[in-house]
């Protein structure tokens, strides 16, 4: 069983998704099983990965460099654990939100399976195919409610995703023309030889791939699809997109930069300064735009751009501490942003509107949800005892070690702006002087059914995990160790 682990984890959600589409019974049990069984298999063999062992699986029995290989090493293990755990919470929250028909769960399982496919594959063209599958299935999820605005947002997302992935494909074409093979480990073996012969072609391929993945990651000039797409989707889908899907782009960044292009550290420009500049601009831009929003979910979407900038800064620093901070911040941001979007979903359901000014006095109605929101926003700002502080602190100390003190100033300024817009929301929660507390008539009589308990308890569990990671950060950092070691050794087997 251990030999077939990668392909089983990818195939199981896919097959169960199609099965759900065919026989429309037992939807919830099957979808939960399709996520729990891969999680259980991954955890059962986890001790091998934490020691640094690597599983390489040849699809169809074809050897390299002809065949497609699936690789589980430290980095893939970390990301796949993150994706599967987050998917559990998203499925549980979708049960609360509405009774979705079977096609919704099919798209959800399809997107989880394609994310696992991107994480495990070691072949560039296979990565492109799974990424297109992810774009299509998330596009269907965004347009699920079929309201006018979400249709426009998902059309925007589809066109920009299509163009971005075409840039990525063209970059793959250049790489294939230079190397003749498509297998990532074999390319990194041949890289130094070919780099010294054709520098310009490698630079063009690098630029094309960076633009392509930059569109999916929503770095500064290419972020235009993100506020609409993340805010006009249903709340569980927003959590899926902001929490995990954006991080998959960062995973592709790491695989390409540290696997292939980073071996020759200075192409024509210093790659580290490029990421530092990009990350800082994204950070300040996201923070400033979020301050000006009046719609709750749009504010959270700009906050995602904010935090992606911090993660890019962490990668730009490039030392061991910087990488640890960036990877830990990926985990923290996923937990916090998912719980924030779930709280926003409950708020929108109870008050019936998405504007900030209608949140006045909400703390009187749902005190525990407001408490979870406060704890999560403390984590996003970086106040100690919640996990966001730990990762920001690690990145700042890495910046000081590597000699970039300006970065610490930029991160502090952005944290102050983040504090400003989150405190604005919290102040509105406690504004008990307002008489216009909107009450949604349809949510007056709610019996305490299983669905409502599920919806609330996912938020409480996520908030509990974030406080736990804030007090005992070594639980998370131990998971990262093999990932960081494998990145720094440039994925040498």
């Amino acid at each position, binding site marked *: 069983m251990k030999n077939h682990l990668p392909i089983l984890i990818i195939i199981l959600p896919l097959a169960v998704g199609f099965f759900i589409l065919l026989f429309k019974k037992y939807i919830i049990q099957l979808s939960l099983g399709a996520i729990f069984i891969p999680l259980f298999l991954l955890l059962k063999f986890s001790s091998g990965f934490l020691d640094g062992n690597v599983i390489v699986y040849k699809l169809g029995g074809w050897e390299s460099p002809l065949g497609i290989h699936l690789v589980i090493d430290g980095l893939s293990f970390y990301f796949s654990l993150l994706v599967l755990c987050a998917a559990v919470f998203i499925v549980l929250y979708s049960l609360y939100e509405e009774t979705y028909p079977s096609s919704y769960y099919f798209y959800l399982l399809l997107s989880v399976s394609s994310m696992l496919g991107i994480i495990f594959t070691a072949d560039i063209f296979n990565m492109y195919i799974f990424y*297109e599958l992810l774009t*299509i299935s998330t596009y269907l999820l965004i347009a699920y409610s079929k309201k006018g605005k979400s249709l426009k947002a998902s059309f925007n997302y589809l*066109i920009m995703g*299509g163009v971005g992935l075409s840039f990525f494909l063209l970059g793959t*074409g250049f790489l294939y023309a230079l190397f003749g093979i498509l297998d990532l480990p074999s390319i990194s073996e041949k890289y130094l030889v070919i780099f010294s012969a054709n520098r310009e072609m490698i630079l063009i391929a690098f630029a094309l791939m960076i633009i392509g993945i930059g569109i999916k990651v929503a770095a500064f000039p290419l972020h235009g699809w993100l506020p609409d797409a993340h805010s006009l989707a249903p709340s569980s889908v927003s959590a899926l997109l902001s929490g995990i899907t954006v991080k998959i782009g960062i995973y592709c960044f790491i695989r390409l930069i540290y696997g292939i292009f980073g071996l020759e550290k200075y192409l024509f420009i210093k790659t580290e300064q490029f990421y530092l500049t990009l990350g800082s601009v994204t950070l300040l831009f996201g923070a400033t735009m979020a301050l000006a929003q009046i719609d709750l979910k749009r504010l959270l979407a700009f906050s995602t751009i904010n935090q992606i900038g911090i993660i890019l800064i962490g990668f730009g620093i490039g030392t061991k501490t910087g990488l640890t901070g960036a990877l830990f911040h990926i985990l923290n941001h996923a937990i916090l942003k998912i719980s924030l979007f779930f709280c926003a979903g409950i708020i929108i359901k109870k008050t019936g509107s998405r504007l900030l000014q209608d949140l006045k006095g909400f703390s009187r109605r749902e005190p525990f949800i407001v408490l979870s929101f406060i704890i999560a926003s403390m984590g996003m700002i970086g106040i100690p005892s919640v996990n966001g502080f730990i990762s920001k602190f690690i990145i700042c100390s890495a910046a000081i070690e590597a000699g970039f003190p300006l970065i610490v100033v930029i991160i502090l300024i952005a944290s102050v702006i983040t504090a400003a817009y989150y405190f604005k929301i919290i102040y509105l929660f406690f504004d008990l002087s307002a008489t216009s507390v909107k009450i949604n008539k349809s949510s007056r009589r709610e019996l305490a059914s299983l669905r409502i308990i599920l919806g609330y308890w996912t938020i409480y569990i996520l908030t509990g995990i974030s406080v736990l990671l804030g007090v005992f950060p070594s639980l998370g950092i131990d998971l990262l160790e093999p990932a960081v070691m494998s990145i720094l050794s440039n994925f040498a087997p």
Partner: protein
Amino acid sequence: MNPLHISILLFFIGLYGVINKNNLIKKIIGLTIINGSTVLFFISISYSEGGIAPIFSKDISRESVQAMVNPVPQALMLTAIVIGVSVTALALALIVKIYEKYKTLDIQQLLKGR
């Protein structure tokens, strides 16, 4: 002027179509042109002068195997064409729904009425 130059030119023509044209259907056509240019790029990489088609039949000798063009990018591009077709089909279905709701396909009108 070999096919590689033409594929890059087509890529930028398609990109111009996606960015500058106001009608939604013209943007989809631009995306299709971009996909087509990528396919042309891959296939022109694997071409060699005077090559024969990589089909295996009974009277194939060692010399004719050397003269065959590379079949791997052709198989890759088959998959890329399939993906392009499905993205185009989904986008067209979405355009039908947008037209039904907003009665216009002009992007400036759609952005104004948000």
